[in-house]
């Protein structure tokens, strides 16, 4: 059964009386890469977490084309600061497979394969918390991709990485996208947004100010805030 479109209607997240995100009206199709951009504190992370279902909504609706339970199994999330489970690299990557009931041997075989794909094949037995920032993010990506999700949410996955690590991560993402994984990702890096985006979601003050194809957005945003943001001005 198809997952998309994902339709949000008046979706809202409030905490202690303050609206963090919303109301959001959005329809996401099943193809390409959506990049969420906006200044610090705009609500990008909360928006992604709301769409993924980690953050509970306080109003509105969010509907996948398939039942929610089914949709939850077919998506994954990569956090800005990767959470390293207190296990080895291979056991970290195998963990999501073990959750589905896959046997230890099969899970570790598949995990080793994914570790090799992201360049961690030489350090399978290293403790995950001993890894560098770039290695951690690669591990987080492999752990997210190992179940071959149809949708992958990424919250600024390259925020603290150097150029080389960023390029490696982007290559992994490009490969995942080519393999049919739908990417929905936030970033601060406009260069990265231009490289990866098929469509852009511009968020400001918890609301979506623009949602347009990447070419259109980068050619000339339709809102003054979007133009100001693209020009590097401070927008609030």
């Amino acid at each position: 059964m198809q997952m998309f479109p994902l339709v949000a209607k008046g979706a809202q997240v409030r905490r202690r009386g303050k609206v963090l995100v919303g109301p959001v009206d959005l329809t996401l199709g099943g193809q390409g890469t959506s990049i969420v951009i906006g200044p610090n504190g705009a609500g990008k992370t909360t928006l992604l977490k709301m769409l993924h279902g980690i953050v509970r909504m306080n109003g509105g609706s969010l509907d996948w084309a398939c039942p929610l339970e089914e949709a939850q199994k077919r998506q994954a999330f990569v956090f800005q600061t990767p959470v390293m489970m207190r296990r080895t690299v291979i056991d970290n990557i195998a963990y999501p497979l073990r959750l589905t009931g896959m046997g230890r041997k099969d899970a570790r075989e598949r995990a080793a394969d994914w570790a090799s794909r992201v360049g961690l094949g030489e350090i399978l037995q290293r403790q995950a918390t001993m890894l560098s920032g770039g290695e951690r993010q690669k591990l987080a990506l492999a752990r997210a991709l190992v179940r071959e999700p149809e949708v992958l949410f990424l919250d600024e996955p390259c925020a603290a990485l150097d150029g080389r690590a960023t390029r490696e991560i982007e290559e992994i993402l490009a490969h995942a996208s080519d393999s049919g994984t739908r990417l929905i990702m936030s970033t601060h890096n406009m260069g990265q947004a231009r490289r990866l985006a098929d469509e852009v979601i511009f968020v400001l003050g918890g609301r979506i100010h623009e949602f347009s194809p990447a070419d259109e957005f980068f050619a000339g945003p339709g809102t003054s805030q979007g133009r100001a943001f693209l020009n590097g001005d401070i927008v609030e």
Partner: protein
Amino acid sequence: MTDLWAGLSQAFWLLVTLDADLVEITLRSLRVTLTALAIACAIALPLAAFLAVRRFRLRRATIAVLNALMGLPPVVVGLVVYVFLSRAGPFGVFGLLFTPTAMIIAQVIIVVPLVASVAHQSLRELWSDYHDLLISMNATQLQRIQALLWDGRRALLTAALAGFGRAIGEVGAIMVVGGNIDHATRVLTTAIALETGKGEFAMALGLGFVLIALAIAVNLCIHWLGRTESEGRW
């Protein structure tokens, strides 16, 4: 000071000659304590993980009660267990009073709140790290608890060792429910109490040093088995 040296000397000779009584009560001490600790951990560790991951109405109250019970007076526990196990009590029919089993029951009651509280502190921190990740992965409640217990196992070792320390040094409750019967329920702590009562300070001190040495040896052994000091491990 003389008593102290005499105690050390007595402890040395008890150990060197492998005194039969000493070996017997030391083994009984270990058996009672380790059995109680194993049962207490089987109850307390999953309870601690459950309290870390599950939100429910009386959660805070439960944690507060658990913390408060860490200071449970052992002699009161002993008294309550005595009442339950005595012939007139609800479990009198089992004939457990003045047996090592009664001592184990009392120790379990004393140790569970301590192990659960210490374990909960460390698992709560681990859960704050894992929360979003495990929810994102659709881990069930049971899988979350399993992940916390496995990944937090080295921190849980500390909780278990705290429980061991409390149990091995316990005297009030096991004196009440065990009765300090020679060749039946006498353990190191009750033997020390008895020797002190008789005025045999050297013997009491000797047994005390053996008790301390035993506690240190078990701690070292568990640390070594758990490889807690290995680089890059937890």
